[in-house]
């Protein structure tokens, strides 16, 4: 399994290179072979997994932190892996034709394959840290994919918004997962799932649950974080079809289903997930029913589906989990297909809005047929698989252990509006003939590469509906994993006349009525839209971001005002305050040695020279005099190094002094005259700062030399320099061996400083080069 995940990144790295050498029409087909192979690999595991087996695989990764790269394949992972690779295959075929002439197509392939590998890693991970890493990788690849057309400012904003929300949730998730690992005593999911009692009795159970839920809800676009998903439709259509309907947004749902056996089955779980899911479902379907953008409507209906899934997992009964898995499969099939159909409409006619379309069935007969089929599934009508999923959903909602009435009403309303949007999708662009303005672009025939995906997925929806025994095995295995014990799904097209069927029929009638008055419904709900624009979640998000920008602008103005003296004062002042605070907190333990008995006469002389040269540097009125005084200071310091047997330091000091002179010579001519720029009170303030800083450091050094909290490490270095570091120069062995990482950091800082100075010089001289 390690191979199946990592090979994706490898293929992704190769994709742009390979793409350059073959015609774009065929590259999609070629790359599609890779997910197809993975699909068959996973399909082969199905009999074993559905018999209750679980594949585990583990590889040490960061041994020092006990982080393992471990993978687990059970029913739930398998269902997701099949969806990811199966739909991925069609998406890649589709992309080759849809964006065949795009100059950056190679990059798109690389990103799509990268995303696929991350998503596979996410659903197969057994280790919490590994899962989190792949989780963030999907956020990052999604960001890059949404922003694929990065020259458009709106696209960039949408990509950034999606990234901020999912990555912000990711931070919460990381904290939650770490808490989960600590509370459960293991970072392996396969072990955590059996720690249910210990986890739920843990005092930090609720904060942990909330943090994990924030992560899952942001990723799966639950209310009030739902607004990034419709905006993410700025991505190319294949990306929307893949990431933002079938796979990535389901990552949150996956995590909830995965953790259900460990964290579920209590009131907090039921209320949080159930109500959030129900609200999301209603908001999604309501917003979908009143939008006219093709991809926007599909995006909002995805929000509806994600809400439904969350609600079902929150209910958590066996039947609800079976319904969730069936709904997940049905939704992936019809929504993936519908997005690809939206892409066909755009590709062939250039229309992006339902109001621009009409009567397309004649020009696009196959697409229209596929659209009708998938729309039936979306509506939850027989004989499509969506019907079975919806019936199971309605039944399980009514069997909820609590809040059954609330969930049932919500599900009924959502089914009603769902019918309306399905009718819009399945009828409006194809059969309604109206007086239409000209199509935005000349008609282009889609060809088999664009039609393969929608047709196959629509046929699968029909096939699974007529023969529900086909997916039963996989769904049972997935539901068993989500329930934590063996569950058998028994799906049938005809359930007899029961409450669910009656609800469906009522929903059908009401939904059709609403469709006939679609225009009126849209204008009726304008008031809500106006309110949302003023105070909706998206507006609140925008206001929060603006406030953040204002705050950082303010603090930059305050802290980075461009005057060296203020920088110095801030830095030194902070240092003094911190040092003094640390010292005053440990007053009792600190001894200050004031023993001057062993000091030789010449050492007094050196100290006197040091003091005299620094005073001279401060008092002089000439620049050259100041430079000379500083030079004297530097060389005297080098002398003290020699006295205390630190030849390396002394050499370095002398060399630095020499180079400083060179630099000063180069700079000196260009400085303005030596003016008195500061007033008397300012100079007094400077003097005060200098004295305080000097005093603090004198106290600090006296305290440090006299107080020992820990045995000094120098003895270790002295003893091990030759035996372990093979060097007699201890200073250098420390620099390049014992503390090599520190030195690496230091040379990185040095490089940055040099590049910063270089940039400043070039900027000032007019931006040449």
């Amino acid at each position, binding site marked *: 399994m390690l191979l199946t995940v990592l090979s994706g990144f490898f293929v992704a790295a190769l994709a742009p290179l390979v793409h350059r050498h073959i015609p774009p029409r065929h590259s999609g087909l070629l790359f599609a072979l890779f997910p197809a192979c993975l699909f068959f690999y996973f399909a082969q595991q199905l009999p074993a997994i559905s018999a209750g087996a679980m594949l585990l695989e583990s590889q040490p990764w960061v041994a020092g932190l006990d982080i393992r790269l471990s993978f687990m394949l059970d029913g739930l992972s398998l269902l997701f892996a099949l969806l990811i690779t199966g739909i991925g295959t069609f998406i890649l075929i589709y992309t080759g034709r849809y964006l065949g002439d795009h100059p950056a197509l190679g990059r798109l392939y690389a990103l799509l394959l990268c995303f696929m590998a991350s998503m596979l890693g996410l659903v197969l991970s057994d280790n919490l840290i590994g899962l989190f890493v792949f989780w963030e990788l999907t956020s990052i690849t999604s960001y890059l994919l949404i922003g694929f057309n990065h020259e458009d400012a709106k696209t960039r904003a949408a990509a950034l918004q999606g990234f901020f929300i999912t990555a912000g949730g990711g931070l919460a998730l990381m904290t939650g997962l770490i808490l989960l690992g600590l509370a459960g005593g293991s970072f392996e999911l396969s072990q955590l799932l059996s720690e249910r009692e210990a986890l739920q009795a843990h005092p930090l159970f609720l904060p942990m649950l909330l943090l994990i839920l924030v992560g899952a809800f942001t990723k799966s676009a639950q209310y009030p974080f739902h607004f990034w998903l419709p905006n993410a439709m700025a991505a190319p259509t294949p990306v929307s079809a893949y990431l933002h309907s079938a796979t990535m947004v389901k990552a949150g749902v996956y995590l909830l289903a995965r953790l259900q056996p460990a964290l579920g089955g209590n009131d907090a779980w039921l209320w949080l997930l159930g109500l959030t899911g129900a609200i999301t479902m209603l908001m999604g379907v309501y917003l979908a029913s009143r939008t006219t953008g093709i991809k926007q409507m599909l995006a909002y209906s995805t929000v509806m589906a994600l809400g439904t899934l969350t609600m079902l997992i929150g209910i958590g009964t066996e039947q609800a989990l079976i319904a969730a898995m069936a709904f997940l499969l049905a939704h992936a099939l019809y929504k993936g297909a519908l997005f690809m159909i939206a892409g066909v409409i755009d590709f062939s006619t250039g229309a992006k809005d339902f109001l621009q379309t009409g009567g397309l069935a004649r020009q696009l007969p196959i697409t229209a047929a596929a659209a009708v089929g998938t729309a039936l599934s979306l509506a939850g009508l027989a004989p499509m698989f969506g019907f079975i999923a919806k019936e199971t959903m309605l039944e399980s909602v009514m069997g909820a252990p609590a809040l059954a009435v609330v969930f049932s009403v919500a599900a009924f309303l959502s089914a009603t509006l769902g019918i309306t949007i399905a009718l819009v999708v399945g009828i409006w662009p194809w059969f309604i003939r109206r007086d239409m303005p000209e199509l935005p672009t000349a008609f282009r025939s889609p060809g088999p590469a664009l039609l393969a995906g929608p047709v196959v997925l629509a046929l699968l929806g029909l096939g699974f509906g007529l023969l529900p025994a086909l997916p039963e095995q996989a769904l049972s295995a997935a539901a068993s994993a989500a329930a934590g014990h063996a569950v058998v799904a028994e799906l049938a097209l005809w359930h007899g006349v029961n409450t669910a069927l009656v609800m469906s029929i009522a929903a059908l009638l009401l939904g059709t009525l609403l469709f006939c008055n679609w225009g009126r419904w849209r204008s009726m709900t304008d008031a809500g839209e106006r309110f949302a624009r003023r105070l909706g979640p998206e507006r609140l998000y925008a206001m929060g971001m603006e406030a953040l920008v204002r705050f950082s602008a303010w603090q930059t103005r305050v802290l980075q005002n461009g005057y060296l003296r203020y920088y110095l004062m801030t830095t030194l002042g902070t240092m003094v305050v911190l040092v003094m605070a640390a010292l005053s907190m440990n007053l009792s333990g600190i001894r200050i040695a004031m023993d001057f008995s062993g000091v030789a006469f010449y050492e007094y002389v050196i100290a006197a020279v040091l003091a005299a040269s620094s005073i001279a540097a401060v008092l002089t009125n000439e620049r050259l005099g100041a430079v000379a005084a500083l030079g004297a200071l530097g060389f005297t310091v080098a002398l003290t190094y020699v006295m205390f047997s630190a030849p390396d330091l002394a050499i370095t000091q002398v060399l*630095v002094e020499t180079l400083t002179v060179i630099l000063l010579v180069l700079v000196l001519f260009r400085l303005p005259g030596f003016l008195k720029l500061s007033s008397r009170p300012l100079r007094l303030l400077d003097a005060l700062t200098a004295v305080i800083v000097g005093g603090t450091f004198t106290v600090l050094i006296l305290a440090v030399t006299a107080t020992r909290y820990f045995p000094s490490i120098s003895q270790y270095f002295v003893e091990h320099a030759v035996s372990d570091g*093979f060097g007699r120069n201890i200073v250098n062995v420390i620099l390049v061996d014992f503390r090599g990482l520190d030195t690496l950091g230091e040379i990185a800082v040095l490089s940055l400083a040099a590049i910063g100075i270089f940039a400043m010089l070039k900027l000032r001289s007019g931006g040449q080069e």
Partner: protein
Amino acid sequence: MNQQSLILRTTGRFLLPLLLLFSLFLLLRGHNEPGGGFIGGLVAAAAVSLHLFVMGTNAARRVLRLTPRDLIGWGLTTGVLSAVPSTLLGEAFFTALWFEITLPLLGELKLGTPLFFDLGVYMVVVGSVLTIVLNLAEES
């Protein structure tokens, strides 16, 4: 900088190779005696700066062949790469590896990844100092 003394011009020409050689000597002996990449780098930078004052900035750039900014990049790369081999042997990142080669005539030579790391430090120091010095000099 045209009116310089004959003495400076003459000595400068001879001092450059000597100083560069000396900087390498400092770099190589650094593990056992005072010296090392940082000190060696400073000496080399000073040597090139001297050349700059004698022969001008173009000549100084010719001595380097690389632009000093590239030297920074190569230095950092060398430093990071020298920490990698240990990970291939299953040791922690940055663990020093040592091996001994016996050379004809010269006897035994001890080489280790810290030496390459020190070389990286040397290059970064030379590159950083000269980036600043050369650009300042060119501007005036």
